[in-house]
């Protein structure tokens, strides 16, 4: 085949996919504001996405905070700036590592589960069944997940921030010989509201991305078990990549010119 034709086809397929995701996003957001509202489903999804992700996100944050304290201590030691450990740990966790690592862990756990569940519903005609039972499958399946993930992730990341900072504190005070009071003072003194808020806004954006990719790939899965498997993989990969891309843009939005 003509190489130009291949490039053209790949580009057109890409544009088609972007268009589909855009329409899917529009529909998902539109239905958030249109009745009927499924509160029971929303609460169930918030439990699944937020509460049940706490152990994995908490552990990630704890060890990240611990490692961060060690690494910064080594790095800062080369400039005789060990006192900066507390402030760099808290800024690193709240601005970047809390939301990004939390988002990636939830993407692995939740986007895959959403894609698998909705994909199985698609290939077993359960989504068609919803339509014949006068229920909009988009509103019933997609909207509660989008809303639940967008609302849950900031709370989850706030908890992760606290656990992460605590991880750094534990290492700093028990292993690196920092004074507990001074470490905490440095942590709080250098922290600004915007550091936390920007992390939480990122978390909300990442939550939306995770649910969007999980639902989108599940909704469009085809071809039985293999199709569901592919949808699951695609959901996790695309959610992870989009989280990293979105992270840059949200960071730039908050910190441009600072």
């Amino acid at each position: 085949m003509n190489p130009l034709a291949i490039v053209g086809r790949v580009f057109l397929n890409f544009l088609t996919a972007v268009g589909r995701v855009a329409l899917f996003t529009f529909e998902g957001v539109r239905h958030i504001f249109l009745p009927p509202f499924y509160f029971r489903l929303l609460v169930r999804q918030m439990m699944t996405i937020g509460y049940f992700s706490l152990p994995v996100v908490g552990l990630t944050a704890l060890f990240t905070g611990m490692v961060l304290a060690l690494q910064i201590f080594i790095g800062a030691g080369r400039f005789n700036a060990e006192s900066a450990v507390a402030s760099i740990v808290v800024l690193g966790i709240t601005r970047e590592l809390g939301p990004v690592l939390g988002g990636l862990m939830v993407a692995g756990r939740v986007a895959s589960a959403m894609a698998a569940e909705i994909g199985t519903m698609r290939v077993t005609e359960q989504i068609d069944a919803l339509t014949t039972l006068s229920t909009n499958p988009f509103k019933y399946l997609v909207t509660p997940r989008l809303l639940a993930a967008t609302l849950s992730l900031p709370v989850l990341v706030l908890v992760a921030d606290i656990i992460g900072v605590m991880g750094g504190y534990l290492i700093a005070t028990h292993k690196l010989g920092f004074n507990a009071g001074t470490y905490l003072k440095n942590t709080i003194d250098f922290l600004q509201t915007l550091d936390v808020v920007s992390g939480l806004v990122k978390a909300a954006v990442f939550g939306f991305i995770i649910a969007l990719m999980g639902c989108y790939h599940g909704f469009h899965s085809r071809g039985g078990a293999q199709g569901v498997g592919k949808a699951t993989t695609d959901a996790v990969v695309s959610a992870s990549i989009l989280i990293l891309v979105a992270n840059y843009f949200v960071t730039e939005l908050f910190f441009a010119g600072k």
Partner: protein
Amino acid sequence: MSDTPNKIVLKDVHKRFGKKVVLDGLNLEVPRGKSLVVIGGSGTGKSVMLKCVLGLIKPDSGQILVDGQDATRFDNGEREDMLRKFGMLFQGSALFDSLKVWENVAFGLIQGRGLDRKDAKAIALEKLGQVGLGAEVGELSPSELSGGMQKRVALARAIAAEPEIIFFDEPTTGLDPIMSDVINDLIKSCVQKLGATTLSITHDMASARKIADYIAMIYKGRIIWQGPAAEVDRSGNDYVDQFIHGRAEGPIKMEVLKP
């Protein structure tokens, strides 16, 4: 509009997926209050035809009239209103595995019609009783049921809202002959009780003979014969004869790759 002799009419419906033509100018009339069974082999367009009527697939061209109104021109709201007239039994039952059996049966009543959960549960248990399942089954999960029981639950769900029109997609596929007959009897009794118009698709001739008032045969995306069920054995159509007798030899050639 509602006094048209035919509840559903498909006029010159075309649908293709890529280069594959699935429906090729399909014409079909489903008489009001009667049971029409469409027979045909795999891949002849039966399921696509049903999904076009339900609006799950959009036809490329043609008209689909439900009570005289063209369903292909409905917006989402109008389609949701139209679907309130319908019940559907899916080939694989399509029960929601995250919900209990009674919640499956009551789903359309709670979500679609806004009924209170308590009232919907009472109706669901009554419908489960109609298909021979006790109240204790209502508390189980669909995955705990056998294939035959799942079909019964799916039937109960299809009739729960007492629809005017019921579609049956391969209602006996995957069931043993005795369970198939049980399902056929249940379909017949439930439909008679409701006085509903039904459109079924199947390749099980025993099922077709049992539940049909009229039979139509689909082949390569077109209806090639339609008539009263009693006349299917003397249709004078070679395709129909080959199909109902299950002969490998005849005008219908199976597309089988030779080794």
